[in-house]
Structures are given as structure tokens and as C-alpha cells.
């Protein structure tokens, strides 16, 4: 069996076999094959090979193949969406419950503040003593750590020290309830300055320190 010298036509013979040529190309190839015995032989060989390949191929069980296919993505998405919606419903319900519970407890705590904070108003007492009779007041403040040494002198020590301690305790709400009503402007300025100079609260739990303060109006004698 010989090869035709026209490689272009030989290249197209399989396309002719499978009817993949457009009309013009098909007409040209058919005309060549009609006149060329080598191409006729080759086309016949191609037909035989195609027939042989088809004959050897077992029939595929379509149902067997289809049964193993994954579900279409649209259907999968619907299933996932419904599952997600159920999960969202649970989350919404839980969130609403938390909000209701939190809101209720907040309202209750606002209505009964004394139940939360039962400590005596230290500053009021100190302020009253400051104006009436000098005496010694004791207050517990956190001990300074090694990195935050205590100031050597505190002026004016009584009100500032006690008030400072109270500021930390009362969470900055002292101005609204008149605890510092007894302080004049200068004392308030000094107090604010000292607050600015305060070191951060130590990380570790401090040991309580007892400070004795002289409340004489002539001036503070320092912290002993």
C-alpha cells in the first residue's frame, strides 16, 4: 500500500470519513479520491480501522454511569441553603434571647444601684472633716510596685489621696454626685494634676497599705 504524495488530501481523509468537511472541501477531496487509487485504498483502510475499533468496543451501560454522577449544583445549593437557613434561625433566636436577658439585667441593676455598691462614700466624709475638724483619716490604697514608686509627698494630701482612690473605685462618676463639693478650685486643680501623674495600676494584685494623713489646715505633713 503506497502513500499519496498529496499530504493535504491525506490529512483530510479522516475528516471525510467522519463527514467533518464543509461542502467545498468535501467536493475537492472526493474528486481527488475518485482519481487517486492510493487515497482510495487509504480511505478504505480508515473505514476498516474505524469499524474494527467500534466492533471491539463493549456497550456501555448508560444507567450504570448516570447513577454514579454527582447531583447538579443547583440542587446541591438548594439543600445547602435550607440547612444554612435553619442554622441562621437558631442563631437569631439565641441572639434575641441574649439581648432580652442582658437588657433585663441592665434595667434591674439601674433601678437598684445600692444593691451593687454598698460602700460608704469616703470622700464625703473626708471632705466634711476637712472643713470641720482636722483629724486623721485612714484610707486603703494600692501599694506601689517597684516600677511605680509612691510619691514622696502628696499635696494637698487628704482630699487628693482619698479622692484619687475614690476616683479609681467609683469609675469616674464622682463629679455628678457632688462628692467633691467641698473642694475649691485650687484643690481641684491640684487633684487633677495628681491624677495625671498617677502611674498605671500594677498588674499583680497589690498588698493593701495603710496611710495615715494629717488633716491639719496649715498644710500636709506628708505621708507616713
Amino acid at each position, binding site marked *: 500500500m503506497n502513500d499519496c504524495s498529496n499530504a493535504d488530501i491525506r490529512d483530510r481523509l*479522516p475528516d471525510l470519513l467522519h463527514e467533518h468537511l464543509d461542502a467545498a472541501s468535501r467536493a475537492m477531496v472526493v474528486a481527488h479520491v475518485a482519481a487517486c487509487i492510493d487515497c482510495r485504498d487509504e480511505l478504505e483502510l480508515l473505514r476498516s480501522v474505524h469499524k474494527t475499533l467500534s466492533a*471491539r*468496543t463493549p456497550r456501555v451501560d448508560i444507567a450504570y454511569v448516570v447513577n454514579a454522577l454527582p447531583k447538579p449544583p443547583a440542587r446541591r445549593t438548594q439543600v445547602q441553603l435550607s440547612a444554612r437557613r435553619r442554622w441562621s434561625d437558631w442563631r437569631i433566636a439565641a441572639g434575641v434571647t441574649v439581648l432580652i436577658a442582658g437588657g433585663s439585667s441592665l434595667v434591674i441593676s439601674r433601678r437598684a444601684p445600692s444593691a451593687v455598691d454598698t460602700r460608704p462614700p469616703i470622700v464625703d466624709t473626708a471632705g466634711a472633716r476637712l472643713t470641720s475638724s482636722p483629724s486623721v483619716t485612714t484610707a486603703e490604697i494600692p501599694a506601689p510596685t517597684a516600677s511605680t514608686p509612691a510619691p514622696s509627698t502628696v499635696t494637698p494630701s487628704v482630699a487628693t489621696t482619698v479622692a484619687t482612690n475614690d476616683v479609681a473605685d467609683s469609675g469616674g462618676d464622682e463629679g455628678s454626685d457632688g462628692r467633691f463639693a467641698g473642694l475649691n478650685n485650687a484643690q481641684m486643680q491640684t487633684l487633677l494634676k495628681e491624677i495625671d501623674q498617677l502611674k498605671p495600676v500594677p498588674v499583680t494584685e497589690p498588698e493593701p497599705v495603710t496611710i495615715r494623713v494629717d488633716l491639719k489646715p496649715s498644710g500636709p505633713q506628708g505621708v507616713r
Partner: protein
Amino acid sequence: MTDAGGEGSNDLELIARWKNGDEKAATELVQRHAAALARFAVSSGERSEVDELVQDTFVRAFASIDSFRGESSFRTWLFTIERRLLIDRRRSEKRRRDRTEIQEDDAATEYDALDTVVADETQQRLQRAVERLSPTQREVFALRVGEGLSYKEIADAVGTTEGAARVHYHNAMRAVKEFLDE
């Protein structure tokens, strides 16, 4: 050239329908391409479990249908997947053979049993001629003659260039002719 004689656009429509939840579209696609995949498998030397191979090919194709961008025809894409599966299968089979030696008699029995399917003597000779080709030549020859794929499509499926596919085809054709002339 599109697969199965200009059915490429229909394939895309069927894929779109399947994506929208139409399972019948998948059945239609399987009906359209299963025989060609089975032919390619047998032509490439696969002799057993062709159904499983075709099934695996479709399962993989549908599982990763989003990666099919329509640059080649759907059938060419399926051939690419099937070819990879064939290569994997041969590798695992080779490993298995390396572990357990197969008796020559068993192989011969399997071969003879398959031969009885092909009754015609000419077909038997053609079958032998194709089986003597190199794996790549056989794949290219099967896709060109058996499926009518263009060289471009063959190159995509086999992972080579168009020119190389053409060379493989003509070398295969020459080898088949020489075998038949002996």
C-alpha cells in the same frame, strides 16, 4: 470542528441545564459521549472494566464541570480526563504487577478471549496492527480515525502540539500499512 459533528453548542446547553438542576441533561450527555469514550479506552489498550473507566470519567467531569471553559469541545475534554485516568490505572496496574508476577498463560488466555470477539480475519489483523503502535501513536490514531478529532483537538486531549499530533498520526498510518503489507 466540534465533537460529534457540530454538537458542541448542544453540549454547552446540556451542561447549563444540568447546572440548573436538570438531571436528565446529564443522562443525555452520557448517552452522547459514552460510546466514544469506550472506543477510545479500548483503542488505547484497555481491555477490562471499560464501564468503570467511562463512569469514572463522567463522575470526574461532572464533579469539576466548572473548570470546563468551553475552549475545547466537551468530548475532547472528556478524552483528556479519560486519558489521565488510563495513565493512573496503568501505573497502579504496573505497581501491582511488580508485586505479583503474572503468569504468561493468564495473559495469553485473556488475549485469546478478546480475540474471539473479532471474528473477521481482516479486523484481527487491523487490531494487531493498532496494538503494535506506541502508546502515543495509538492514542492519536484512535482519536483521529476512530473519533474524527482534528489535530488541534488531539493535541489538547493528549497534551502535545498540533504538529506533533500530525506526525504521530502519519507515522501510525505508515506503521499500520507496513504491518498489513507483511
